């Protein structure tokens, strides 16, 4: 029978167990991936799948044809200009609009809230939002957005210096210099 002092000395605490397990997990690590592979995986999806991107961007024309009138009249009633958006799921593309509800810059950080019109019956909880320029079919950057309990999507991203400067004076009621390609986060 061990004494209490012996037990105190040898019995591990949860902290020690966690540290012990973490140390062993290091030893079990597989070989590190090569930089070339990581760089390839880290490339934006529109560079890895340019054909797919071209198809989705072509969908913006359809939005203009279907929603062009609504896009102008909504803004005319004092609202914001809806942003054309394409949701890309596996083999299915859906065209719709995104109402910009909130747009705020703090330094280079953009905070944005938007709502899809019409709202999909089963909205994705997380979306990867790709910002596509309006003056050319050019992807600018992408950012993750989460669905809020209120049904709008929220995102926050630190912009490049160039984009931050170009958009610094953008207001929520302005015509937005971007369009959205939306992809479910788990497919992104």
């Amino acid at each position, binding site marked *: 029978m061990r004494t209490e002092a012996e*037990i*105190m000395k*040898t*019995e*591990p*605490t*949860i*902290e*020690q*167990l*966690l*540290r*012990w*397990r*973490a*140390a*062993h*997990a*290091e*030893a*079990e*690590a*597989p070989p*590190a*991936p*090569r*930089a*070339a592979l*990581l*760089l390839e*995986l*880290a490339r*934006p999806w529109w560079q890895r799948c340019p054909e797919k991107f071209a198809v989705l961007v072509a969908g913006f024309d359809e939005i203009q044809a279907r929603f062009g009138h609504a896009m102008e009249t909504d803004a005319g009633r004092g609202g914001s200009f809806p942003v054309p958006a394409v949701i890309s799921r596996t083999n299915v593309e859906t065209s719709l609009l995104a109402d910009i509800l909130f747009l705020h810059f703090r330094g280079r950080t953009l905070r944005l809230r938007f709502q899809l019109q019409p709202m999909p019956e089963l909205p994705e*909880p*997380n979306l990867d939002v790709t910002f596509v320029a309006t003056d050319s079919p050019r992807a600018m950057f992408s950012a*993750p957005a*989460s*669905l809020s309990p209120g049904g709008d999507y929220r995102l926050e991203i*630190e912009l*490049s210096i160039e984009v931050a400067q170009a958009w610094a004076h953008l207001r929520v009621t302005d015509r937005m210099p971007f369009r959205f390609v939306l992809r479910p*986060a*788990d497919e992104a």
Partner: protein
Amino acid sequence: MPHNPDVGVSGGVVDLRPTTGSGARSDNEAYELARSGQVLAMRALDLGEKGASARLVGEESAAERFFQDAVAVALQALHEPSARPLDLQLRAAQWALACGDAVTARHLLAERSVEAGEGMAESWAQISDTDAWLDAWLIATVRRSPPDELALNALVRRYWKPLFSRCRMLTSNRESADDLAQDTWCRVLRGRDRLKPGGNFRAYLLMIATNLWRDSKRSDLRAGSLADGRVSSLDREITLGDGPAVTLAEILPDLTQLEAAERASLKHDLDQALERLETLWRDVLIARFLDGESCAEIGHRYGRTEQTASGWVRRALSEMKCCMEDLRRNAH
């Protein structure tokens, strides 16, 4: 810039005596030439020190500019036919790495003079071996576009094991851990222009991994009953009595005395126990005991008080202990 050609530079191997030049030049011309080289060298050293100071206080853009200027001025000084600090070439290579210019650093390494190499072999060897580069050098070169692949390989290798270990603790699964670790690197590389060479890269990497894991768990929460992980509500009431002291007397062996079979069994049980824990408890345990976060910091992260976080830690410990006791009892 105030300058006295007779005064050496602290910390450097400096010989600022004016060279006398060839017979065709007057002493005055030679002195002026030497002086211009010395002024440039002094200017480069000053810029290099400013770069180091800026990096120390986290002013990365300023640091990068100072280091770039230091390299440019040093290269100019190295082309002057005058006396200069013997270690200027080495310092220029170090500044080049500090601002991510691996090409210039390697060029300086290849072109180094025998004279400049004397007594500095160790420092040059560090520059020639990418695996020996400082974190700040690796990160600065990875930040560039395109990133230096040798530097990225070295950086990935340096932190792969701790990253994988953290992912393993978070996911309790080898395959998921591998995926999470790889996703973490992809996330880091996508935002690599925002990396801070003077920051704590290990902590940053582990934070990205933990955030990605938390995000995936938040998705599980939204996915409701279809999710494969259990996620606790932050607002659920936690009831704790005085609770037992958190040691695992009678059920666990001394970690230093384990046989291979016992070790494997304990690892398995620990993985199982972590797997059984709700996401919040696992997160809290890892944050508190592996990252060393205080209860105040954990609480702040979740928008809760230190007291609440302290309750979570006790509850997490208690849950983990129960899981372990259960598993160990069944094992015996």
